[in-house]
């Protein structure tokens, strides 16, 4: 076999080359189409999966996180994990399940510091400002506080105790004479760390962390609450109403804020004394 000739004799014709190229392009195109629909599906985030503190908004996070697991490694409580193939969470991305191991809200936030890409936002330096999700009392039928029993476990384990969850005293209509202490979550302070969900004494927690977009309603932008606007402006924004007056007989009034109909004392002047006996006696005198 001649060494010099073998190079050219094995050459590819233009036709073969084109066919190969077109074939390769088609294969790539097909793969692309498949991938697009798969991406949509595979990057949906199930509600139980909570992102680490400081995680960018989900769509940005999926572009920024390289799935290196450095956040996972630096979490001292083994809270975080990377999604494995076969799990519902976008492959390789970090998350935690509050009911299993919640976030302990480290003051120095090692997970955020460890993130090389900024998928966990390095501008988060105060863990109280993180918003991993929001606690929601999802089931008022099983939460024993709603049944009038004293529980308050979620209230007590909350790292922002008394701020993120408060207890509201309500009348217990069942017994008619007791109080109920209802846990109320406040998004102003709840970080979504999940300690409440972890601690809920029920078999399946009645308080759960949801991603913010699932947990929160969003008010229409045009929406204004009169009393807030009034506070902001320092005065009523419309001409104050002339107070309505019922057309009542003299000596009577109406209190809009509670008492209702008022019969004024002085109008009660009557020819008759308070004690009916006296009237009778008076009558006898006249006779």
């Amino acid at each position: 076999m001649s060494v010099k000739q073998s190079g050219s004799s094995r050459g590819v014709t233009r036709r073969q080359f084109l066919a190969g190229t077109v074939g390769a392009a088609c294969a790539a195109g097909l793969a692309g189409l498949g991938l697009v629909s798969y991406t949509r599906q595979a990057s949906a985030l199930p509600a139980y999966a909570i992102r680490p503190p400081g995680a960018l908004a989900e769509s940005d996070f999926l572009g920024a996180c390289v799935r290196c697991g450095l956040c996972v490694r630096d979490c001292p409580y083994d809270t975080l994990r990377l999604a494995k193939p076969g799990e519902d969470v976008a492959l390789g991305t970090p998350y935690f399940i509050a009911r299993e191991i919640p976030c302990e809200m480290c003051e120095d936030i090692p997970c955020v510091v460890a993130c090389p890409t900024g998928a966990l936002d390095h501008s988060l330096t105060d863990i109280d400002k993180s918003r991993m999700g929001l606690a929601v009392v999802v089931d008022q039928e099983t939460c024993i506080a709603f049944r009038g029993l004293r529980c308050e476990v979620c209230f007590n384990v909350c790292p922002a105790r008394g701020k993120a969850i408060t207890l509201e005293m309500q009348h217990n209509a069942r017994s008619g004479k007791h109080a109920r202490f209802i846990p109320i979550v406040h998004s102003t302070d709840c970080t979504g760390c999940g300690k409440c969900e972890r601690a809920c004494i029920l078999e399946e927690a009645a308080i759960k962390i949801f991603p913010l977009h699932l947990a929160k309603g969003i008010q229409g932008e045009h929406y204004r609450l009169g009393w807030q606007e009034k506070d902001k402006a320092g005065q009523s924004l419309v001409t104050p109403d002339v107070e309505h007056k019922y057309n009542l007989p003299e000596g009577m009034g109406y209190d809009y804020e509670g008492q209702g109909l008022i019969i004024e004392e002085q109008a009660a002047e009557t020819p008759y004394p308070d004690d009916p006996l006296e009237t009778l006696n008076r009558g006898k005198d006249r006779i």
Partner: protein
Amino acid sequence: MANKAAIGQDALIEKGWWKSHQWLVWRRLSQLSVLALFLLGPWFGVWVIKGNIASSLILDTVPLTDPYLLIQVLLTRHLPETTAVLGAVIVLGFYLLVGGRVYCSWVCPVNMATDFAAWLRRRFGITSAARLSRNTRFWLLGLTLAMALVTGTLAWELINPVTAVYRGLVFGMGLGWTVLLAIFLFDFVIANRGWCGHLCPVGAFYSLIGRVSAVRVSAIRREQCNDCMDCFIVCPEPQVIRPALKGSDETSPVIRDGACTNCGRCVDICSKDVFQFGLRNSGKMNSQVANHQREVLS
């Protein structure tokens, strides 16, 4: 010409086992020790290196980031922290020095599976071959970059078997082994060197680095070649050998094709010691330069 059953037989006889397997052994050692270093932390609490091949931290100080991933991150229009950028520069520099696809043959764990599949094919004489262009990988590479740009997410990372397998080994496999098995079977049954040689966009990316990287294999003693074809048979990218080995005196004996993985199998397998690791511009290049100079001067 050696027949197929006796690939490497000549080398074994002439050079002995060690000399005819040396680079293969170093390479497996390298792949396994990189993996071992990553596992030292989670298994024994010794944190030499943390993370996985996507991005990692050596001794809590030196960051490493896969430049291919970083490019995708940039395409999603996320501006990464400097740590990731620095890490990518370090990794890029390293592969620019030692050879782009050193990533493939010295680090990537998938390579062990695909090499095994290729070895089995040789052993059992399986020749079934799906017709695939070796350029498909560049289309797929383009596709993965386009996906990042269009979806704004690292779409490729949702299925990338290379990082999935590595992450699986270091962080827990889940169903990840099915990915590895699928690649193995694809290479074993459907296409020779199917995944790494034709499809993998990660390898395609690193082959681009390989086009300019410094360390290259050179067919420096090519005049001693006895056409046994052993190198063509064991090489995962046989098309890269021909221009260097069979080139004219005017051309360089250095294998400059980026697809060469610097695996060194050709160095091992050649009973005539034709191949040797060297630098991109070494060896017969000098005579080429000399020729060029002569032309310029005259």
